[in-house]
């Protein structure tokens, strides 16, 4: 088979940086393979992706050693724009990568640059619209479509120029499960039907691990190409089934629910472990209805949350999760019904604190410590306590860093620290797992548990089934603004088709985390 991408002893260091982002990478990727790049944040995944299309080093600058050949072209001699017809790149947040406004024009932009003749361009655009089935969107504005659609438009736009390799940086990190499945399916179709080579980085391994051919594992700038199973075992990370495999010492580690079920065998349904009932009621929601203009977003919701509870709000995009959170915190006026926190109408930010979907929205100080101090000052609290909050989230070492220099995950932790520092007993998080690496995710989980353990309440909206399964003491499922299920994770997630965690799918109702299953198998 002819190889389409080749790294020869590539070592790269960013300007004014001592450590090598890529350290002597040697690998070759054949045409028509679906390759997954995995590894903790800062291990070199995205540098690797950018080196594959010349953005590294041409766009970033830095010191570069070795040779990258893509489609037979040396990226040193060809800057990115001269590789556009061979390799296509889809960045993590397509919304901010769109150049033109209409979907149709956006698809044509790349070809316009390559000087493709208009007739052919037109035909190509139509093909792309069909291939990723986004024809209905052709006239819409790229800013006004859903996340999943946006990803597919971005892919179509990248593909239109007819490249041989498609490089994607965490394409599903911002999507709900359904959206993610559409995108992954589309990518698989490209590989199988079009013989495309697809290279993608992803944190949510459970979403892609099953469908890729090979994986490149990254650790401190070094890379290892191999079967997904090997790579994941060596990296000590991966989807819950893989974690189970490691706990149970299986080899190779399972990557799909099917493999896990085959290796683990059947287990009896697990009795829901009765945690001692919630403490006295903190949040009390009665007949709550909220709307955006005339469009109802939350319909007639009743909810009581007691001290020590951690509630996961789930449901597809537009189910009303965010609106519910904003109403609880007191920034969104309810149409009908009432919200009471410890018996009184919540004073925004004082009784309940909310960490918004884009944590960057609140970061403006020069250092992490200042960021937290600002909140304390604004709330008239003792600024000395800032250190404690940072400790609680395990980001004390970052205190002196500039928030904008941190990874997405670390920023989320900083933002959480900044809002939590206000000392509100009720802590609300809106989709805290967007683009979150496992390490940061663990820190966040621990912090939430601690907050609840000290008599607080944690409520978070999420698409991340596994996170809900791991940390929530209670899951509330929303659809069309109404509560359609409310109970402990085992019960609610257990009998859901879309939202069931891998352990439940493999071993039946009640089984939520690899730890539980491993314990039962041992």
């Amino acid at each position: 088979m002819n190889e389409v991408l080749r790294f020869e002893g590539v070592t790269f260091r960013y300007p004014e940086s001592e450590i090598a982002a890529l350290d002597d990478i040697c690998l070759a990727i054949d045409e028509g393979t679906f390759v997954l790049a995995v590894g903790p944040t800062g291990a070199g995944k995205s540098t690797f992706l950018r080196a594959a299309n010349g953005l590294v080093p041409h766009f970033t600058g830095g010191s570069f050693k070795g040779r990258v050949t893509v489609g037979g072209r040396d990226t040193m001699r060809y800057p990115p724009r001269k590789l556009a017809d061979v390799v296509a790149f889809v960045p993590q947040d397509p919304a901010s990568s769109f150049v033109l406004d209409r979907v149709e024009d956006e698809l044509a932009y790349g070809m316009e640059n390559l000087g493709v003749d208009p007739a052919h361009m037109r035909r190509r655009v139509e093909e792309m619209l069909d291939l990723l089935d986004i024809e209905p969107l052709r006239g819409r504005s790229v800013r006004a479509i859903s996340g999943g659609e946006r990803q597919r438009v971005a892919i179509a736009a990248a593909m239109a120029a007819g490249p041989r390799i498609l490089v994607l940086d965490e394409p599903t990190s911002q999507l709900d499960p359904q959206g993610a499945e559409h995108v992954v399916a589309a990518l698989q179709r490209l590989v199988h039907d079009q013989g495309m080579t697809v290279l993608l980085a992803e944190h949510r391994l459970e979403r892609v691990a099953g469908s890729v051919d090979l994986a490149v594992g990254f650790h401190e700038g070094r890379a290892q190409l191999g079967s997904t199973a090997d790579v994941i075992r060596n990296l000590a990370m991966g989807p819950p089934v893989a974690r189970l495999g490691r706990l149970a010492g299986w080899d190779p580690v399972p990557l799909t629910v099917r493999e896990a079920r085959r290796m683990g065998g059947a287990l009896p349904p697990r009795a829901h472990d009765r945690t001692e009932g919630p403490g006295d009621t903190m949040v009390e929601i009665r007949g709550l209805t909220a709307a955006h203009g005339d469009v109802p977003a939350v319909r007639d919701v009743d909810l009581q949350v007691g001290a020590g509870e951690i509630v996961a709000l789930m449901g597809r995009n537009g189910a009303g999760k965010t609106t519910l959170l904003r109403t609880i915190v007191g920034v969104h006026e309810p149409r009908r019904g009432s919200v009471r926190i410890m018996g009184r109408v919540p004073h925004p930010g004082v009784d309940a604190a909310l960490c918004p979907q884009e944590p960057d929205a609140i970061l403006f100080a020069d250092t992490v410590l200042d960021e937290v101090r600002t909140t304390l000052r604004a709330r008239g609290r003792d600024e000395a306590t800032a250190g404690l909050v940072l400790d609680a989230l395990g980001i004390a070492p970052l205190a002196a860093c500039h928030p904008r220099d941190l990874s997405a995950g670390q920023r989320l932790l900083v933002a959480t620290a900044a809002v939590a520092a206000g000392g509100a007993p009720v802590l609300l998080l809106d989709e805290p797992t967007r683009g979150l690496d496992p390490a940061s995710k663990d820190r966040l989980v621990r912090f939430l548990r601690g907050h609840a353990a000290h008599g607080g309440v944690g409520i978070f909206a999420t698409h991340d089934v596994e996170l809900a399964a791991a940390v929530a003491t209670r899951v509330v499922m929303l659809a069309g603004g109404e509560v359609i299920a409310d109970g402990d994770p085992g019960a609610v997630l257990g009998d859901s088709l879309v939202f069931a965690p891998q352990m439940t799918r493999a071993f039946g109702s009640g089984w939520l985390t690899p730890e539980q299953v491993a314990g039962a198998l041992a």
Partner: protein
Amino acid sequence: MSTVVVTASGGLGRSRERLRIGVLVGVNLLGLLAFVWPFVLPLAPGIDENHKSDGPLILVTLLICLGAVLFVELGRGGLGPKAVALLGVLGATMVALRLPGFVAGFSAMFIVVLLAGNAFGPGFGFLLGAVGTFASGLFIGGLGPWLPFQMVAVGWVGAGAGFLPKGSWGVRIGSLAAYGFVSGYLFGAVMNLWSWPFVAGGSALGWSAGADTLTNVRHYLAYYAATSFAWDTFRAVGNLVLVLVLGRPVLGALDRAARRMRLDVGGDMTGPVAKGAVDVDATEHVHESRGLPGREAG
């Protein structure tokens, strides 16, 4: 194995040809003429015919002059993706600020031009001023004969901010604040000039063709004082305060962004240029790194 050190493409200030500077200066003077002709023309007997004829013809001539400025300033090409992206994003903030930030003569969009011009250099400042004004004009449906004049005038405000001294924070903010204050009035004065001869023609505050430059200047100052001084004071003071409040943090953010994007901000009137230099660097390096034993590694 030899290592190749690559400079990032997409400088904002690297000048491609010195010659351009001459062209730019010339064409900007031409543009200046489009504004101040009422003062200059009476001195030149040759062109008496023009300014004695009817308004629209003069307006057309002026628009042609300004067209020339915009043509050269905006048509230089080779901005490269980084500069275009920055222009787009900062232009968007100008669009966003055009309406909410509007108080009498003051518009918050000036702060963007001032700070960005100061951070990224005169060439970028002019481009941002012109592009942002154009975009905001389109966005709020404000297209009209005044648009070219606004584009050039705002562009000049941005360019001017790029020439200010960049020493300590104190110097930088201080000079920028002062400049913001002054430019607040200058912008108004310049913007009034274009309509003055037509609207105030003949009146005591108006432009009289026969009169000498001094008289006209005196008339204009009187006219400006009577019509727009108060109005423009809002702009001047607004700029001053905003620079003092936002200058430090925002400039910090812009500088960091420049570093993160690996922009080289050398700032001169030739503005953003991306292509050329860099690829040359790269290929040169490739030459010296040719035949390095990379293959063995593979």
